[in-house]
């Protein structure tokens, strides 16, 4: 992503962020993307590695809706297959971030004392290291496969949700129903899992939705420096990376993948906002 920003937790908004049609459209878009990516082999107009050297750099046309690339491969096909990789990186890394964040945050928030101290110091340490440069070094050094890249992106993004979850847990833990559960002898694990985690679910889901977008952006930034997903595997990030050299002569090669990244991240953010606003209304 970006020279990127990390928001500390903040009080939820008091009013719906976006007009109600936008989040629904965004959600539909996201689901459609996931479905299209999943069935890419069935619907893609060409084979993913069908090289056609006689038909290189063709502009968008009836046969090739999005044009063709340097090797005459159909860009639409590559974008569909690229969606598998980019969405997988976004989704799985976000879930991973959420899981680590929830575990760390819940443990810290419930246990308090020195455990809380240690975990929060660790969180601080991770937050203090510049994220994108760190990820660049890790990827450059270890040259990860796609699954490993997912792990790295996920492991670089858990700190925000850890803080959010910890704060929520702390405020919830003070409530009556938790004291009651404790009083009847529930184990700490049970208290956390049964009583506290459901309470933080909505907050965590906002963070997770936003993290999907961030994961996709991070992948594209890593690819910009040539340390992300490596061709011939297509991802939106590395398609964009390859297209940057021909930006002036074949702009469609850069415009379509860039637009896909932008739209997907935008959809995630809109949906995340809506969940945040909605959950606030009910609580």
């Amino acid at each position, binding site marked *: 992503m970006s020279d990127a920003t990390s928001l500390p937790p903040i009080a939820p908004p008091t009013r719906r962020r976006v007009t109600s049609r936008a989040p629904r459209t965004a959600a539909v878009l996201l689901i459609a993307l996931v479905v299209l990516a999943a069935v890419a082999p069935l619907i893609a107009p060409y084979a993913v*590695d069908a090289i056609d*050297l006689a038909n290189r750099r063709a502009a968008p046309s009836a046969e090739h809706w999005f044009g063709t690339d*340097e*090797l005459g491969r159909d860009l639409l096909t590559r974008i569909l297959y690229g969606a598998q990789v980019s969405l997988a990186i976004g989704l799985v890394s976000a879930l991973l971030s959420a899981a680590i964040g929830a575990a760390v945050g819940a443990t810290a928030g419930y246990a308090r004392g020195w455990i809380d101290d240690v975990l929060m110091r660790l969180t601080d340490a991770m937050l203090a290291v510049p994220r994108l440069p760190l990820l660049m070094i890790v990827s450059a050094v270890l*040259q990860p496969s796609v699954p490993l890249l997912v792990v790295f992106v996920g492991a670089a993004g858990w700190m925000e949700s850890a803080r959010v979850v910890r704060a929520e847990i702390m405020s919830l833990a003070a409530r009556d129903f938790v004291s009651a559960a404790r009083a009847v002898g529930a184990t700490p694990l049970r208290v956390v899992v049964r009583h506290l985690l459901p309470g933080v679910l909505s907050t965590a889901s906002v963070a997770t939705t936003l993290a999907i977008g961030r994961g996709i952006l991070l992948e594209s930034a890593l690819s910009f420096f040539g340390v992300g997903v490596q061709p011939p595997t297509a991802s939106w990030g590395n398609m964009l990376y*390859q297209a940057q*050299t021909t930006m002036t*002569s074949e702009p469609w090669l850069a415009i379509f993948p860039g637009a896909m990244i932008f739209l997907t991240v935008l959809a995630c953010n809109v949906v995340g906002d809506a969940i945040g606003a909605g959950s606030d209304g009910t609580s």
Partner: protein
Amino acid sequence: MSATLRHLRLALGVPLLVACTKDASRTRAPNDLLTVGYDREPDTMNRYATHILEDIESCVVEGLVTNDERMRVVPVLASEIPTVSNGGVRLRADGGMDVTWKLRPNVRWHDGVPHTSADVKFTVDAINKGDWKPESVDGFDRISSVDTPDSLTAVVHYREVYAPYQLQFVRGTLPRHVLEGQDIDRASAYNRAPLGTGPYRVAEWKTGEYILLERVPNYWRGAEYPKIKRILFKFLTNTTTRINQLKSGEVQMVALVPWDKVRELRASPAIRLNQVVGNGYEHVSLNEKRFPAFSDLRVRRALAHAIDRETIVRTILDGLVQIVNGPIQPLSPAYEAKVATYPFNPAKARAMLDEAGWTVGADGIRTKAGSALRFELITQSGFAIRENVAQTIQKQFRDVGVDMRVRLVDGTSISGLWFNGDFDAMLHWWQQGADPEITLFFAADRAPPAGRNINYFRDDSLTKLLYASDRTADVDARAVLLRIAQRRVAELVPELPLYNTSKIDAVPVTLQHFTGNPTNAGPFWNVYAWDFAPP
């Protein structure tokens, strides 16, 4: 609302104002300044210590010789090239050899101190002393001593015959009166702005931005040289940025334009694209140690027949390079054109693989004795053309039943991989010297770490030939041996040669006497003569 708009207008208004004042600098006299967009910042200006091209350095520090645009060795600070026939090279009875360098008289360092044979001796001693880290001590370690009978004569004594002796001092000499007694690694004054004898000196090095060279007064070629007053090397590591600045006129010249960028520049009327045949060749190395199927000659020949080099060159490379069939390139005096070739012929490739016992399985992939003809090709990431060539070869191999995967590896890691032999096949080219030595790449005992035989290829007759050529000081006699060696290499195809890496430089149409250069001497080898035509 209004607040935002105002800010927007402010943000947009500023550039409009500034843009009007931007191009004032364009009106300067033509020979005042040449602005070069350069793809990287040098690590050091010390020619012996740098490990990248010596373009900028060569404007400041001159060699005793250099290579011209046809790769011929031409004298610079030497008054002539020593050879066996002109008596400059004498073979000793003990197997060693003496090379006598006659220096050009009346050459002075930029500080006015005369350039003498003592500087040659100092250079050899400094490198052989071993307490600093020049990039390479190649050849120097075979020098036992240097005699300086007079201030313009240096006699270099070699312990053994060393065929590439002519290029021994292509990187120039070190100024004794400046560097004597210094730790050269830490001599940052010299390493940042070296004292040379060349037409230019370093006026300013602004780290991360540019190096500015300015002409020296009293250059030894005469007061009329160099013509251009100043040369600015702007560091623009991003290729797209570099080409965009060239098109917009922010820089006037770019050395080594990537082939896939040439198309874009053809339309620019202010730019001339100067092309020379290169000194390297793109090829696929086949690691016989890691993937034993490669040690079968029939398999190697089949793979060679399976690649459609014509189509690759015509399409992906836009016809900018020429197909070559061996490691020594056409410009070299030792080049042999009549060697065995392997034209694109998938039917023949399939037949040869069948004959070698690799039969097509159910999935279309060939197998033999239970193992599949399946390997991984590594190549350096970040080069679109190379990635595309790799993927095309992947498809062409697949058509004859060979399953090759492609893995892109970044530039620094890939060195470690080939150095340790941790790869099956690799698509790459070597930075070759101007000398035609290929022993390093093909002699049986020169696998890493002793050399660059990363095919782990062994052929005794070839090895003998190559070592014999290394011990032949006479240029012509050596070339005969190397021609035989090239025929042998082509016959045995230890690697799959693809195409010559031609070098294309973008220069202003008004710049005269620019020739380009295929060697590491770089396109600036004759910068003293460059001249902008008057408008």
